[in-house]
């Protein structure tokens, strides 16, 4: 049951990821990426992380992709859709990608420690409560630093996208 759902969501997310890279029109890429993120959040639910699934939908599908679509609407894309890939020799990049993929696949499939199905440890009780206790007690400083980074990014984005003063 779980495995069937995982295979379904994984297949759809891989297909939509391929669509992101291969699509001619950037709007199609953005919509395919949205579908891919939705299926990845479903996989998060299967991996027993429902909070992350909700955050994924809120942040990626709700905020980041809407930002992308706004920028696509602001910019005239018509001349950009003519040529999909970089001109000239893509051979080194393709060789690098093939090497990377084969290396990671061999390393994962070669080791038998990754084939385990059941978790080595079980956590019990109220998971969201434990997660938030860990986040706000043990990782309080990184949390505050992340909020400062978000503030800096907000100010930076406004300053960068603003029109010049006359």
């Amino acid at each position, binding site marked *: 049951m*779980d*495995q069937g759902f*995982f*295979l379904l969501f*994984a297949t759809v997310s*891989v297909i939509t990821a*391929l669509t*992101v*890279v291969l*699509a001619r029109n950037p709007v199609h*890429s*953005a919509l395919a*990426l949205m579908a*891919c993120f939705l299926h*990845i959040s479903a*996989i998060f639910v*299967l*991996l027993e*992380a429902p*909070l*992350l699934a909700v*955050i*994924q939908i809120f942040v*990626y599908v709700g905020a*980041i992709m809407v930002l*992308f679509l706004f*920028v*696509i609407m*602001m*910019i005239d894309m018509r001349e950009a*859709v003519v*040529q*999909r*890939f*970089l*001109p000239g020799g*893509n051979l080194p990049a393709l060789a690098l990608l093939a090497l*990377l*993929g084969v290396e990671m696949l061999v390393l994962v*499939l070669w080791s038998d420690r*990754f*084939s*385990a*199905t059941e*978790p*080595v440890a*079980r956590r019990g009780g109220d998971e969201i409560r434990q*997660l938030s206790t*860990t*986040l706000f007690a043990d*990782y309080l400083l990184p949390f505050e630093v*992340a909020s400062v*980074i*978000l503030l800096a*990014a907000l100010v*930076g984005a*406004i*300053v*960068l*996208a603003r029109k010049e003063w006359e």
Partner: protein
Amino acid sequence: MVPLSWSILLGVVLFVIGAAGVLLRRNILVVLMSLELLLNSVNINFIAFGRYYADFRGQIFAIFVIAITAAEVAVALGILVALVRNKSTLKVDDVTMMKG
């Protein structure tokens, strides 16, 4: 239950696809979207290992990755809007202003 290696393999496949988008595509917007795909494939690995070892740190790292990604996208799209306003191009290989 789902084996751990399946999640890792899904992460690998999505990572390679995203890297292909970053390295091969010509449109800056699609390159940025492929970057999102890369970060998300790493998140899958974090959460899978966090579940396997019953450790919350995987999920917490994923939360931080998502926060940093949101900041990165905001700044990157701001730079993109400024770039299009000044140079009116969306091709990666046309943006060579900082090339010494």
